[in-house]
């Protein structure tokens, strides 16, 4: 018999795993928006690309889920790198409004391409048997899949943090962010650092998109449908702050899950109410920087 407390605990796990998946999908946008100053409305489309590549690999080659995941991440990174080196070079020169329109244009093109290639239906990736079922802890049972999402995201977040704090690349990126001109002067190839960062961000989105299909199912309009969600995670976190993105993704995932369970009548409304309240109190987000 699940009592109120264990229900709350299970919801917390659900909320946190949902939040961590949101973090994966949106963390790349935090970098492009806050660091490279590009309004990249195509970002959530990269999550969709990752999901569809994983799905395609599993369906056509019969590849295992755990093999398809890293492959789809690498493929998405390659695609995003190609786009960064060509289309985004135009975007950089434009103003925010131009960037917004151009990247929404890219989303339209990707949406149409995916619809032509994969069909208009909503799809989810079939989970391998090892991820189906529940793990029991005393009188509580928690979905294995949720724990997997949680574990993957925490591992990725930790790796990201370690990479930023303790590697040369991380130091270069931080330098390029804080003062691009100075970074260039000391011999850092800022454009290259940004390109690589952009590709990594898109790769993470792809991972989130592929892992999270049980929560955000795949469809051609994915890139537009969940764009708002991804944007508000970044805005609430504070543009350019990785830590902020983590906090806001967790908070919003938690609020959304709790809200939908305890106040079902309000459904998806609660999360937006929370967003507005947070942004009213802290217009620059939870961990906002000046400027």
């Amino acid at each position: 018999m699940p009592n109120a407390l264990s229900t709350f605990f299970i919801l917390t796990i659900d909320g946190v795993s949902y939040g961590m998946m949101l973090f994966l999908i949106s963390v790349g946008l935090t970098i492009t928006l806050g660091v490279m100053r590009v309004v990249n409305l195509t970002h959530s489309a990269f999550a969709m690309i990752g999901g569809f590549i994983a799905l395609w690999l599993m369906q056509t080659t019969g590849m295992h889920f755990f093999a398809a995941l890293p492959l789809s991440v690498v493929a998405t990174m390659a695609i995003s790198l190609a786009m960064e080196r060509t289309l985004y070079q135009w975007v950089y020169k434009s103003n925010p409004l131009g960037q917004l329109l151009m990247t929404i244009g890219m989303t339209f093109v990707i949406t149409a391409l995916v619809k032509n290639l994969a069909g208009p239906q909503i799809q989810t990736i079939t989970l391998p048997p090892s991820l189906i079922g529940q793990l029991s802890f005393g009188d509580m049972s928690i979905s294995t899949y949720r724990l997997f999402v949680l574990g993957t995201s925490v591992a990725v977040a930790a790796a990201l943090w370690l990479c930023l704090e303790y590697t040369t690349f991380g130091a270069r990126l931080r330098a390029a962010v804080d003062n691009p001109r100075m970074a260039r002067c000391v011999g850092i190839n800022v454009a290259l650092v940004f390109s690589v960062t952009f590709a990594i961000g898109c790769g993470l989105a792809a991972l989130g998109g592929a892992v999270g299909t049980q929560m955000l199912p795949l469809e051609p309009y994915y890139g537009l449908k969940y764009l708002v969600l991804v944007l508000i995670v970044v805005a609430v976190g504070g543009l350019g702050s990785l830590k902020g993105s983590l906090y806001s993704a967790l908070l919003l995932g938690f609020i959304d899950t709790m809200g939908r369970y305890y106040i079902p009548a309000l459904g998806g409304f609660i999360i937006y109410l929370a967003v507005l309240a947070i942004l009213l109190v802290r217009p620059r987000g939870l961990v906002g920087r000046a400027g």
Partner: protein
Amino acid sequence: MNTQSNRNLVVGAFRRQRYNLADVALVAAAILTLIFGEYYLALAAMVVIMAIFALSLDLAQGYGGVESLGHAAFFGVGAYAAALYALHVSSEPISGLLVGAIAAGLAGLLSGFAVLRTQGLTQLMLTLAVASLLYELANVAKSVTNGDDGLTGYDVDPVLGLFQFDIFGFTGFVYACVVLLLVYALLKKLVNASIGQTAQGIRENQTRMRMLGVPVERRLWLLYTISAAIAGIAGALSAQINRIVGLDSLAFTLSANVLVMLALGGPGRLYGAIFGAILFVLLSDRAAAIDPTNWLAVLGVVLILIVRYAPDGLAGLVSRTVGKRSAK
């Protein structure tokens, strides 16, 4: 002699209000539609409604520099307000328009408080958050808005008690055109008056305008509220002419579409918004009938090319090429 002075009078008035050839072409287009486009009047009314909506965004964005990724919020509020008014209070259309304008204006006034405190990216996110909030609110408050099904089954009385809405959409089109004309004239006055001029100054350099003693925040707030009210009028018109209001009137897609219209036409010059709306609605109607999926791809490519090669929109492109030619 007499005709000459009459002519000067007309030309003088024309110049004073800064009307130009583009405005004449638009009026001519409306009249031609009425004469030759009898089978397309419903579509033409849609064009006019979207033109009003794009104008409202042009006021906020093209003139005031307030970036909005959620302008559908005001269109939707106006539409729902007008439909609810027609359902529960009165089916008189003109007062319905006013109700739509006031409701949307209030929404602009309130959300402007939050939105205008920020700039750039945060501002975009806030406008998006406001629109998403209203969308979810309309989705959740099913007892008032009917949720997914939308509001239908309300009557709209003849305009001014004289002109009954007909199945061909004749009255609807003329009604929308008259409203567009009034809105356009109002905006023309507004952007050439001191508020419009200072707004452009604020767009270019906020700090400088503040130094000059312009109450920047209050000016922008007023501008944003007016813009919201006009978007509300467009929404109310849509509710009255189409006899249905659904969640799509608050959707992100609509916000994105109106941005595209303005970008197509060219922001900051009023008629650009109208041209953009005409082009966008007509093209997407045709293309959606033929192949909606590939139309989306074409639209995307067009957007990318516009930003790359014609950042001021088509109006900017035209005036640049015309300017080049006359300079030669």
